[in-house]
């Protein structure tokens, strides 16, 4: 970093932050230089988001100081940070669900320039300009709560870029985005960087990280473990720095042996507007990958399997018995489990304890005579799963809100494994999950499949599909367009068919 002798725009020294029993940050220091993209890397729960939230005044540190242009800022608040030119794309977006996209984009800008009146006529063109600059199609008049996760993420990005930032934090801005959107975003990032903006970029997609960053800081369990020029790192070495160990990403697929009767049979499933004529099956122990571009209908297919959507025609049978369409209960009692895409709102009870979350789906089976819960059986289930999934938390009584992404996802998995499902459907199981956790989650799935469970996994992450799936289906515009069997599975070819 010494190659430029420019003064850092922002510097943090010895930041400490403790939540309850968890040390999120343990004396972290970092400095940002104008015109450089600084990558903050680390596993789930290593403290990346916390550091960002402290710098942007959302959280107050227990110790340490923040300097902007060499001047110490005491009592940082979001408003002061914004006025100092700090813009943040938060991991959870922090949008207003009840307001329109346009308002979401321009409101923070209007606050920062201390406007008293809200000028509707000015707000739209302002928002439109940034949407166009990013080459997006966003309905500016739609309420944010009606948007898909990807569109929300795009809205959050537009919001941060609409103002002239001096320092831009991007906390996992690409998790829900497609390749082309990511590419355009990176284009803009480069433009900003040329304009002298200091940018902090957080992502678990390590190849992305290496693509855009100049500097890298690696956190592990709240401590700074490595820092330096990005050119000195490869995906491998970065992974080692993050996890403290080597992570294996080679293809490791369970052997299915001889094909018997299928576990799940989907036949001619149809839901106009979402998908048409979907037929496939799943063998016991098989891990089936489904992929396709965002909005291709792949999510809707599995939502129909789980009963969240009601298909207009077609049948789904599990072990030969037909499911009642559109009934979650029927799917669950047939032995289907579903790990949803949006784990924070759909998968978890954030304020409830880990223990409560783990048994949330299997309460009836933990009751004697379906009436009284067996404390003993519950304790067994919880401790077994807590151990088996290696959930990192101070205790099972800790609320799930205090967990990082990867650990939270393990809790969702635990909830379904507690129901002893025959089929587990996972929608983006490793989105926002760090490399170490990701491999552990894949290992858990392989183990479960080895015991006879059928797994359906939706993912954007092609290498991940390659590393675990027996078979991969590709969805395009609501139809199954290709099927890759074990030997044919290869990242390059899948990507080609997807994008075609």
């Amino acid at each position, binding site marked *: 970093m010494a190659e430029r002798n420019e003064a850092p725009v922002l510097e943090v020294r010895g930041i400490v932050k403790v939540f309850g029993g968890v040390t999120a940050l343990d004396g972290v220091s970092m400095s940002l230089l104008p015109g450089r993209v600084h990558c903050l890397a680390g596993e789930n729960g290593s403290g990346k988001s916390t550091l960002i939230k402290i710098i942007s005044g959302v959280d107050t540190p227990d110790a340490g100081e923040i300097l902007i242009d060499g001047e110490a800022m005491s009592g940082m608040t979001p408003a002061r940070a914004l006025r100092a030119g700090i813009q943040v794309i938060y991991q959870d977006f922090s949008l207003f669900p009840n307001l329109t996209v346009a308002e979401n984009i321009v409101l923070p800008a209007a606050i920062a320039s201390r406007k008293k009146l809200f000028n509707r006529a000015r707000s739209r063109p302002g928002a439109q300009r940034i949407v166009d600059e990013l080459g997006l199609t966003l309905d500016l008049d739609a309420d944010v709560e009606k948007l898909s996760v990807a569109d929300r993420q795009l809205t959050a990005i537009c919001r941060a870029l609409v103002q002239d930032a001096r320092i831009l934090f991007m906390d996992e801005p690409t998790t829900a985005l497609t390749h082309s959107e990511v590419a355009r975003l990176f284009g803009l990032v480069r433009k900003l960087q040329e304009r002298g903006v200091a940018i902090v970029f957080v992502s678990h997609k390590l190849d992305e990280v290496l693509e855009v960053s100049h500097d890298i800081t690696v956190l592990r369990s709240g401590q700074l473990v490595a820092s330096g020029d990005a050119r000195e790192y490869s995906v491998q070495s970065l992974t080692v720095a993050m996890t403290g160990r080597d992570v294996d990403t080679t293809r490791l697929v369970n052997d299915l042996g001889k094909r018997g009767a299928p576990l799940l049979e989907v036949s001619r499933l149809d839901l106009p507007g979402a998908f048409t004529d979907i037929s496939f099956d799943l063998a016991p122990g098989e891990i089936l990958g489904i992929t396709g571009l965002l909005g291709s209908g792949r999510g809707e297919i599995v939502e129909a399997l789980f009963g969240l959507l009601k298909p207009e025609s077609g049948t789904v049978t599990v072990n030969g018995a037909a499911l009642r369409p559109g009934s979650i209960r029927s799917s669950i009692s047939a032995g289907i489990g579903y790990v949803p895409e949006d784990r924070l709102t759909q998968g978890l009870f954030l*304020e409830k304890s880990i223990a409560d979350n783990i048994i949330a789906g299997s309460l009836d089976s933990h009751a004697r005579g379906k*009436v009284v819960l067996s404390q003993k059986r519950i304790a067994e289930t919880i401790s077994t799963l807590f151990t088996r999934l290696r959930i990192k938390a101070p205790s099972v*009584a*800790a609320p799930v*809100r205090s967990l990082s992404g990867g650990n939270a996802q393990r809790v969702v998995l635990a909830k379904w494994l507690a129901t002893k499902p025959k089929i587990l459907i996972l929608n983006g199981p490793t989105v926002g999950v760090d490399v170490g956790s990701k491999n552990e989650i894949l290992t858990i799935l392989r183990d479960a499949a080895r015991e006879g469970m059928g797994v359906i996994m939706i993912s954007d992450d092609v290498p991940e599909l390659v590393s675990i799936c027996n078979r991969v289906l590709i969805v395009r515009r609501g139809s199954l367009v290709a099927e890759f069997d074990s030997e044919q599975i290869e990242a390059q070819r899948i990507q080609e068919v997807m994008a075609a």
Partner: protein
Amino acid sequence: MPIRTHQSAAGQVNSRIDNTVRTWISHIHVDRGIGRMLVLLVIAFALFAVLNPRVFMNPLNLQNIMVSAPEVGILAIAMTLAMLTGGIDLSLVSIANLTAITISTMYTGLVGSDPALAESLGGVIVLVGIAVGVLAGLINAFLISTVGITPILATLATMQIFNGIAIVWTGGKTLYGAPQALSAVGKSTVAGVPVLFLLFLVVAIVIGLLVNRTPFGRKTQLQGANPTAARFSGIRSASVLYGTYLTTGLLGGLAGVLFVTRNPTASADYGTSYVLLVIVIAVLGGTNPMGGFATVTGVVLATLVLQVVQSGFNAIRLSSYEYSIAQGVILIGVMVFDQLRFRRRTRYVASTQTRNIASMSNVGEDADETPDTAGADSVETK
């Protein structure tokens, strides 16, 4: 950083988990709401006992507190259940009055023709009365679950409807008459403790068990904590909501039985002041009005606290308005205290943790695995 071998880590983790699971199981009921209410109860009691011992420590006074607590307490428990699902039930008092009116009407109707029969059918009459409460609960459940009306509005409307029915039914008059066995129960004591109070404790224990020890109760909590995740976990909101509002209707009916037990009369307008009071009690007792968290024990204690303060105020000759000021101050005071305590504790834990960590040479994965029982409730910022 040294990488721990799988075995030793797993073994360690295992024993730790056994411990934490055990503490979790035993601590799960000792939640917020209980401790502070216990403290408040003792303080209030001691204060009035000192200020006016002759009146306040009079056994009669204590007995009276135990006689008046149950009807409010049962309604507060019902309110707690509704709040647990993130809802509210404003119609409880109207339901109780409908039950009381049913009982009184049936009894006086029968007594006219055959007094002995009326007495012997006392149990049946009471059951019919409670059934009316359950029916009212069913209507609430239908509006909230099937039609999808927000609970506060649905029960606001049914409060007026049930009350209107009661007025039309009674012509606005106060009905007199209830099975004598009820009145006898209302007056009897066991070892100096009024039977009504024992009944209240039984109801509290049953509901406490229902909430914590049955799949239904746990589903209620989860539904209140996050309805979407509950749906994705296969919890049917319809069955939770129907179960909840049927139970609140049942408890409302039970409160109505207590109304006629304490006093063999029934009218459309008895207990209207309880509607907001029971919300206060439920929250004082640690119920999160947003849903998901509640303790029945806390609610029982909160009921007693308010009863004690009220009769204490009377004993030291303060007016009802001064009591209503005090009630407001206690409510805000308790909540503010909770907030401050929460803030202080996180800071305290923070500093010790930092010290611990600093003193540890090996800051590894286990650093944040130190068992910490305070972690459970220190994050409840709601």
